[in-house]
């Protein structure tokens, strides 16, 4: 997997930690939401920042009390055609006030890059099967957007009246 943000590829400073592994004390780590919920207070006092990944969107309600303390939330796309996490991202960003890194992972296509960014994701993981060029091209495919979204970009309906 290669990590990208809205500008292109970047180095991943986070470490994914399985439910069986010990959490590291020196690097930022990502654990499952269920593991996090079991020992939330403890993990949040760890010296290194904690992030979680959500497999199931039902967990949103449970993690709500911790949203302002988490440094990263990763949302899974079990299949690229399953678009639920686009909505979850907007809710976390626009309603729950999550300000940390919002990450998409799973089965994603480069062609979804700008939708991810617009829905509020900061970073996303895409298989190395796809060239970096494809992802960067997809990020820059469009300069016009019609609808308001989590990235708060100025939309065409707003820009039309901007100078008037």
């Amino acid at each position, binding site marked *: 997997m290669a990590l990208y943000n809205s500008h292109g590829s970047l180095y991943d400073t986070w470490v994914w930690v399985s439910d069986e592994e010990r959490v590291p004390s020196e690097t930022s780590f990502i654990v499952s939401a269920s593991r996090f919920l079991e020992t939330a207070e403890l993990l949040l006092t760890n010296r290194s920042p904690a992030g979680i990944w959500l497999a199931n*969107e039902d967990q949103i309600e449970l993690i709500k009390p911790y949203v302002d303390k988490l440094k990263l939330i990763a949302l899974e796309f079990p299949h690229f055609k399953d678009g639920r996490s686009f909505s979850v991202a907007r809710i976390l960003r626009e309603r729950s006030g999550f300000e940390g890194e919002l990450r998409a992972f799973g089965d994603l296509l480069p062609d979804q890059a700008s939708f991810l960014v617009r829905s509020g994701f900061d970073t996303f993981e895409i298989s190395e099967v796809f060239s970096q060029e494809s992802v960067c091209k997809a990020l820059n495919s469009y300069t016009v957007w019609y609808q308001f979204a989590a990235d708060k970009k100025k939309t065409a*309906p707003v820009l039309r009246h901007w100078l008037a």
Partner: protein
Amino acid sequence: MYVYDTYDKTLINQRVAEFRGQVARRVNGELTEDQFKPLRLLNGLYLQLHAYMLRVCIPYGVLSSHQMRKLAHVARRYDKGYGHFTTRQNIQFNWSKLEETPDILYELAEVDLHAIQTSGNVIRNTTSDHFAGVSNDEVEDPRPYCEIIRQWSTLHPEFSFLPRKFKIAVTGSEHDRAAVKFHDIGLRLKKGANGNIGFEVLVGGGQGRTPVVAITIRNFLPKQQLLSYLEAILRVYNRHGRRDNIYKARIKILVRDLGGCEFAKQVEDEWRHARKTNANVSFEEEERIRAFFVPPPYHAIETPVVSFQKACSEDVSFRNWVLTNTYDHKIPGYAIVTISLKPHGGIPGDMADDQMDIVADLAQAYSFGEIRVTHKQNLVLAHIRQEDLFVLWQKLVEHGMGTANVGLATDIIACPGLDYCGLATARSIPIAQRISERFNDRDRLNDIGKISINISGCINACGHHHAGNIGILGVDKRGNEAYQITLGGRSDEHAAIGQIVGPGFSEERVVDAVENVVEAYIENREGKETFIETFDRTGLDPFKEKLYGTL
């Protein structure tokens, strides 16, 4: 009609460039067919039985003469010289080559046409009343709202990977010509208690294998709040709609499973948040869009129009066409003309390239250069002076488009069926052609009067058989095509789903069966009752008896 500005043009040109790149990545193998499929579908490209089919979007069915000429060009240059108008007011070309589709889209973009979201699990082309802006019974013109929805739904970042396709229809009239009750979301413009205009919001209608009439979840939505409310509905659906079973993924199943009240409650909860965002368009933008739909510069015409009356009395064929194919216009001295694309024995909705050019010319000469596509697969010229009707009719007759059958037994809706479609289980087109030939008699057609016959070649119901007064569903019965008949369906404000009349009929016998149903109506009707009025009074019994003998 709406005219694209630099924002709109930039977006569709960027879409063409993106698609060209996607085709190249499919050809060089970076994208698998599984990955490419949803991407091509988002650009209207299907793989059918014999070739790729490209479905071009005609937003809420409105076209300019200029655009129609480009469609003629595409039919001529890239296809087999014809196109097929669909029940979503779009047009499809049945013989596209994959490697040529980026060029077709490039050419279409030159006249502000595209194929964005004409397929796939996204918000599809918003449809509307084909008499919008010209009928007498309108609360307000629905087209500006269709355009607002078009823009909002185009490349929506959150709603481009929905559980299933999503269809919205808007009507501005009490009399529903847009079948809003058979849509995922139906919107009906209405006057509120304080005189303000807003929408009645209906959800969960649809056809397919589980036909459902939509229910109202909000009686009155202030029209300024339209987009935030739509966003709330779509968000509830995107999160909770089923994704495990393609046949249970439409919003109607979610509404059914949750119950209408609970679904409405979840939408309202969501909307409390959504309405606080900037989802709605500004007043200025709404006004900008509305300005494109002001009435064209009509002439003041003295009525009655003597030359028109004279032509009607002198030419019985013309008079007959006027009676069936024209409709009252809100401006005195004008008429709304429906051009039938259902010539007797022809393929419903098909149109040859030269006919497209002719209609483009006629629209330019007589109807302010505007053409509309109806969801019943016909065309409308919405602003014809009565004094021009005779010349227009002669031109249409000369080019095989003068069939006087709008709303009658041979004005059949049919899906492409097994002649083209990979999903079909039976043929639709030959059945439509044979029924059309069977009833090809002016006096008989007029005697039978208003009736809708809709044919689908499979359970997916693209031919709207559930909503036809007479519905015909083709099914595959152990290798043989068989046809099931339903009666009593209708798609207007009294929307109803047709009821199965009994065992199906073979391909040979189905046309006789339709004729028997019509005969049963003639025998049982009282006074001036239409087919559906008789059916609503009698129910299935007299029809069953006619078809299957004594009960």
